[in-house]
């Protein structure tokens, strides 16, 4: 009997051990300890899918990590979710693109030290045959109205992201309530929305960066340009960055968050953003470095010390 007892244990033990041994063999230098440097701290950045999926952050973060001997955990979530993670104290710094939501975040005391970071623009993309006839329209709202009137399929992010927020603002500005079979909320990231629109020949609103980075995979074309290519100003897409308020979440890594904001708004990092290209096109335009003061970047839009809003 004791022999059998040992056999059973051996069978149980070896199975798990063999599995674990196998996995340590495949490690391949993937230990996270190895990437931590002098200070060894980790900054958690929650951000949008557009900054991450375009590859920008991976491209520029290396020099920050090297400079400070830290590692940056970038979590790509979409603006709404990124701010919610920060609100719950699960991240140290947020990089998002929906000024209205950023202002709400600031007003509620969760964010401090907001800076304008960079911008690109939104474009309305769709199938080449353009069933709603919006190609070359100078007004984004007219284009959306034409899509709605034609009942042409339109894919909405439907995920409370910066792009989704912009899209809803555009519908409101157009005075059209989107709805019906032609309007589909997919609840996914920008890449998913572009894929989805591509597969069913639908229109969608995209940030230019994600569209350029994915253009080789899809057949959609830009039908209404944003301000970078002379389109309407309403399609501008500014990104902001904020530290999580250490007064609300005292265990947030505030020092490192401020080091990060200082670094990414510095001329060096801003140049790196400017130089980042995909398929030969610049994806993001830095706007943190300027001779002229811009006080609006630090406070919610329209805020002034004279107003009762304080």
């Amino acid at each position, binding site marked *: 009997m004791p022999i059998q007892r040992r*056999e059973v244990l051996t069978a149980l033990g070896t199975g798990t051990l063999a*599995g674990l041994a196998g996995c340590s063999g495949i490690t391949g230098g993937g230990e*996270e300890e190895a990437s931590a440097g002098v200070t060894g701290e980790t900054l958690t950045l929650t951000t949008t899918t557009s900054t991450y999926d375009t590859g920008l952050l991976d491209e520029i973060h*290396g020099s920050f990590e090297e400079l400070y001997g830290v590692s940056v955990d970038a979590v790509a979530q979409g603006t709404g979710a990124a701010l919610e993670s920060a609100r719950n104290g699960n991240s140290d710094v947020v990089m998002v693109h929906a000024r209205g939501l950023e202002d709400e975040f600031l007003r509620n005391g969760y964010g401090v030290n907001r800076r304008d970071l960079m911008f690109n623009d939104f474009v309305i993309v769709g199938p080449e045959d353009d069933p709603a006839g919006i190609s070359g329209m100078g007004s984004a709202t007219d284009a959306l109205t034409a899509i709605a009137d034609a009942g042409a399929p339109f894919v909405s992010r439907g995920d409370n992201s910066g792009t989704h927020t912009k899209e809803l603002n555009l519908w409101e500005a157009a005075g059209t309530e989107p709805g019906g079979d032609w309007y589909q909320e997919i609840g996914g990231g920008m890449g998913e929305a572009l894929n989805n629109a591509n597969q069913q020949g639908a229109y969608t609103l995209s940030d230019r960066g994600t569209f350029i980075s994915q253009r080789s995979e899809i057949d959609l074309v830009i039908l209404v340009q944003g301000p970078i290519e002379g389109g309407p100003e309403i399609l501008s897409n500014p990104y902001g960055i904020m530290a999580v308020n250490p007064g609300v979440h005292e265990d947030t890594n505030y020092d490192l968050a401020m080091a990060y904001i200082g670094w990414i708004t510095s001329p060096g990092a801003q140049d790196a953003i400017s130089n980042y290209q995909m398929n030969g096109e610049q994806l993001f335009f830095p706007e943190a470095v300027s001779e002229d003061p811009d006080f609006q970047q630090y406070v919610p839009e329209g805020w002034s010390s004279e107003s009762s809003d304080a």
Partner: protein
Amino acid sequence: MPLEPVVLPAASLLESATGLAAGAKSAVALVDLPFRDGYVSSIIYVSLYVSLVAVTLSTLFSVPVAIFLGFTDFPGKGLVKSVINTGMGFPSVVVGLIVLFAVSNQGPLGSLELIFTKEAMIMSQFVLATPPITAISLAAITGVGDDVRDAARALGGTRIDAALVVLKEARYGIATAVLAGFGRAISEVGSVLIVGGNITSADGISKTRTLTTAIQLEARQGQYETAMVLGAVLVALVLTVNAVVVRFGDRGVR
């Protein structure tokens, strides 16, 4: 020995297990994928690490529970079994949300700073793997005939000896249970995405990105070919682990 035909291919698969990372790399080279050095092997590592640790912990918890349930009778046992069976169908995203709530900065475990770590992923995988391992182990143990127990007792064995004989008879079922739990853990995407955050470092080494969340990321970007290659790596991985477990499970018979 009916298992013999299974064991032979299993052995060759076992040999290929050690060269899996290299195999993945050559597959990558074949399709010329835009992955950086160490990316694929690091996501394989994270996938295996999280799933194996979770399944090991889950097995250490589930099998004793299954033995206890299999050898004792108490009022409410039927209810406990229904709860376990229901747990097998528990949606992984809900588990992810519950674990997220627990490890979030403001949650009960917030001070441990587990959000967006492998440990948080192990927690959610543990919760997901435990019901199938417990339920299938229990079925295997109760499936062993009373005559086996009686024979063990009749030969002068103690209660513990009888239990061990039953366990030995039930070992294939228990191995199946562990594999089912492993299969659920390694193929799961919803909860690890929520609690892990799908993080890689800037130099492309995975911190909390698994094969499943990497596939999801590629699909999100419309890179279906690279997603398919990663999918093939995942299937190869599951096959390999199954083969290893079947092989060790069979050794006891020979």
